[in-house]
């Protein structure tokens, strides 16, 4: 069965390693924080200027001066720090943040990503996405494998305006875990009960299947 958003978040949480500083995008990536094992030490960065983000505050304890990049009220954990926007992107551009997890509208087999603009629709802006994808050493995209109309979002070439070129390393969808290689999307894992054929049918870009593909462990 294909994963839901929580399933995708749970699978991505396994990619988060002890000692990582991690930037989480809006949507499914935000959920990843809930499934990182307590046995490892991780700090979450929000690009508006905080490291060591904690959960939402208790009612009555919200502070307009402490928010995340989604403008939501948050708390901080022991060891947290605040900093300005230039320093925040110094952490990102300077590759001090080890892992970036973000959503996408389209990913291409060459690692291009599109997630900020749909021509003809109101454009809200790229925020920090272009800085993040251009800089991070390790980028994982969390997304549904197909759009609502059933069309593949894993393409030969992106059709939407790009956010970054050749930057995506790994993709976790509701159907599969894939790695971007010079030859295309290497299939690493299947969602429980999902066949290679189903993944193939949902992937427009070149899908590379080598040997037996294991099911994800969640």
């Amino acid at each position, binding site marked *: 069965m294909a994963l839901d958003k929580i399933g995708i978040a749970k699978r991505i949480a396994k990619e988060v390693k002890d000692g990582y500083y991690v930037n989480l995008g809006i949507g499914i990536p935000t959920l990843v924080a809930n499934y990182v094992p307590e046995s490892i030490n991780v700090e979450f960065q929000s690009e508006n200027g905080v490291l060591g983000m904690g959960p*939402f505050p208790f009612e009555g304890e919200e502070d307009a001066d402490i928010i995340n990049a989604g403008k939501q009220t948050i708390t901080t954990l022991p060891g947290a720090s605040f900093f300005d926007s230039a320093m925040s992107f110094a952490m990102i551009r300077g590759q001090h943040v080890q892992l970036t997890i973000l959503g996408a509208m389209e990913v291409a087999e060459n690692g291009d990503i599109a997630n900020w603009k749909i021509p003809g629709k109101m454009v809200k*802006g790229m925020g920090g996405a272009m800085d993040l994808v251009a800089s991070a050493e390790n980028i994982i995209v969390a997304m549904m494998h197909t759009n609502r109309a059933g069309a593949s979002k894993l393409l030969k070439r992106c059709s939407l305006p790009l956010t970054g070129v050749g930057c995506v390393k790994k993709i976790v969808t509701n159907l599969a875990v894939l790695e971007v290689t010079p030859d295309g999307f290497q299939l690493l894992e299947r969602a429980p009960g999902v066949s290679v054929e189903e993944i193939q049918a949902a992937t427009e870009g070149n899908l590379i299947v080598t040997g037996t593909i294991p099911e994800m462990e969640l």
Partner: protein
Amino acid sequence: MIRKEVANVKDALAGVTNNMTLMLGGFGLSGIPENAIAELVQLNVTNLTCISNNAGVDDFGLGLLLQKKQIKKMVSSYVGENEEFERQMLSGELAVELIPQGTLAERCRAAQAGFPAIYTPAGYGTEVAEGKETREFNGKMYVLEYAFKADFAFVKAWKGDTAGNLIFKGTARNFNPCMCGAAKITVAEVEELVPAGTLNPNEIHIPGIFVQRIFQGAKYEKRIEQRTVRQKS
């Protein structure tokens, strides 16, 4: 000591005229110069170019200037959550330049630090880089982005002293420190203005040299854009 304090917001904004380019600190509604924005509305200056990460919401922040059609152009990284903005943008009344958030910060900082331009990897290969100079360093491609030029920077800090030294609080810091000294005149508004010598020099985030005018804001609403809470279990 060089004194930077002015009596009120009116004095702080003396010299602001039509057609100017303004920098305004803040991320979302957090850390925005509320009092300077209110005064810009009062002054009714128009044809403004505003460099600000966001454009406020319909009835707060820069949305107040948009309502009165005082802004000609916005330079921002994200402009959602604002219907009037969307209307003016789609009708062509308002010009909008969208740039990556880190590039926005660094173009401010470059102006502050005396760099004419910077190279950034952000936006390479996308429409953001169209028509711009690019260059390879160590096998990776970068885009040349120029330092901003602005007439006034309006920033908001938590505490400040009469010498113009500033301390920020939480994530209300955001773009504010990057904009200090990045325009011809930097105007800082603070929640609490104290005599010079009161603040610990070790704890100053922005030295007064980057600030020309400082005043204590008459009031702060500090509106929360997305109130998210958890229940006590």
